[in-house]
């Protein structure tokens, strides 16, 4: 079986974002770019499955839509342990555009399990996985918190609002994964970093596709009013404030 992990390249999650050109684009000065946290966990789980011979995973590939500047992020995924990588040479205009590009690559070279993170920590769209599934006419299972392979069957847990379901997907499918899929992201070891330099990274040119959305401008949240402190010797006052001032209890 072959697994594909879709990667997004995002600013480190502790970044204090700033915008440039009259707030129309992200100011990327000083930003550390990382693999999207959910994609990193997906990759970790894919590699754990490959490490277990009973799962029968032959290869873990990563795919990414981005310009050449994103290659260090892809090399990082190879260093963590992916076998090979595909970079579609285009700026990711919107989720629809990205999913259409990935779909073209996958149609030419299908995978048994495709893992996508539930959202990217930058534009928070939660969209690429589901869109990709629709482009490929494949089943998708969302909010997946575990993926296991038992006797050749792929079994996943999905979170539903207020509970969990155990679901089987016979045949190729897309798992849109969230927390729980792996405990801690796997870290690249020195040997992995050395090997990553020579692992195959195929660059594919994009297809023509018109994005359906356009990002016009950004604004920062309004600063909250200063915190009102309650005397720690008399914390009961807090309840009065919540009742009479904020009127929320």
């Amino acid at each position, binding site marked *: 079986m072959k697994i594909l992990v879709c990667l997004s390249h995002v600013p480190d*999650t*502790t*970044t*204090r974002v700033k*915008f440039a050109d009259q707030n129309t684009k992200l100011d990327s000065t000083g930003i550390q770019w990382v693999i999207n946290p959910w994609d990193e966990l997906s990759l970790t789980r894919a590699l754990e499955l490959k490490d277990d011979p009973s799962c029968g995973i032959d290869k873990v590939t990563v795919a990414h839509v981005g310009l050449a500047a994103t290659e260090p992020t892809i090399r990082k995924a190879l260093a963590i342990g992916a076998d090979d990588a595909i970079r579609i040479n285009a700026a990711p205009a919107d*989720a*629809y555009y990205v999913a259409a590009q990935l779909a073209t690559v996958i149609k030419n070279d299908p995978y048994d399990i495709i893992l996508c993170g539930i959202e990217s*920590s*930058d534009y*928070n*769209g*939660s969209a690429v*996985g*589901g*869109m990709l*599934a*629709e*482009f490929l*006419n494949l*089943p*998708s*299972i*969302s909010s997946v918190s575990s993926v296991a392979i038992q006797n050749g069957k792929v079994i996943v847990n999905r979170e*539903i*609002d*207020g*509970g*969990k*379901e*155990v*679901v*089987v*997907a*016979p*045949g190729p*499918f897309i798992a*849109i994964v969230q*927390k*729980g899929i792996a405990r801690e992201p796997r870290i690249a070891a020195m040997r992995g970093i050395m090997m990553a330099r020579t692992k195959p990274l195929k660059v594919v040119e994009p297809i023509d596709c018109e*994005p*359906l*959305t356009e*990002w016009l401008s*950004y*604004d920062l*949240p309004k600063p*909250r009013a200063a*915190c*009102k*402190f*309650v005397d*720690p010797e008399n914390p*009961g006052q*807090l*309840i009065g*404030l*919540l009742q009479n001032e*904020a009127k*929320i*209890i």
Partner: protein
Amino acid sequence: MSVLIFIENWDGKFKKISFELASYGSKVAEMLRTDPVALTIGNVAPGEVDRIGKYGIGRVINIQNNAIHSFDSQLYSFLIDHVARKEKATVVLFSNNNTGKSLAPRVSVRLHAGLGAGVNQLPSGLEPFIVHKKVFSGNAFAQVMIKSPVKVLTLAQNSFDLIENPKEVVMESLPMPAFEQGIKTEVLETQKQTGKILLTDAEIVISGGRGMKSSANWGPLVELADLLGAATACSRPVSDEGWRPHEEHTGQTGKIIAPNLYIAVGISGATQHLAGVSSSKYIVAINTDKDAPIFSAAQYGIIGDAGKILPKLVEEVRQVKGK
């Protein structure tokens, strides 16, 4: 033309997030000078449909079939697409929860419709169509233009107030269209949390962090939650330590919540934690460190030890509520 609103069916009942969506959908329809129509799939309990009517919806389409026994995103997207075309919907609306997130992207591709995910207010323009949404996990917002003739939006939870505008509801049953490719996923088991207030539904959430010091100290926090009708949550280190279950983890990689009141006890408020709770209407922080970043996100704060403060709060709430 119409605005199609997908109303999630919870064993025959509807939830508050769907009423928020109905209120939002009726307003969008009013802006577009068209009618809102709701779609719900599966059996609906008697009287439930009238609850949707209260928020400005006069027509509800219901599809029922014995073949629909579990949630399959391919089947559901096919049905929503079918109804959207039939109703000539120009806007299709979902809640931005697990179900909405799994359906909206699929429906968006089927209808060749741009997706505005997690919008938090009414469109700021119609021609062009512009929506406002959270980006960078709540550290910023963006204006996004949707260029396609049909638009799909998911509405962020607790971002739009309920607007009462009672309508007489007509429910139309629609026969199930043939789904030739068949359902490919199989649900083996469903476990539902019962009796507890769901974290994602709760109006008040009380959350404990490392400052709680040990899993043994959760008693007063849970008691306070019970008294206030609140759900309990925790920070990532707490769930990683196994002090509380993973389902309670709120933060960027855990649950993203937007209650009316979030009480953070012994939580310092790292960026990743705030990303999960910054949409709360009010934040209260209790922490021993006066410089903890949580205080800059909070409207009310107490500098002190959770172990001493919580029992006093429990006592106060008991008195106030006369329990």
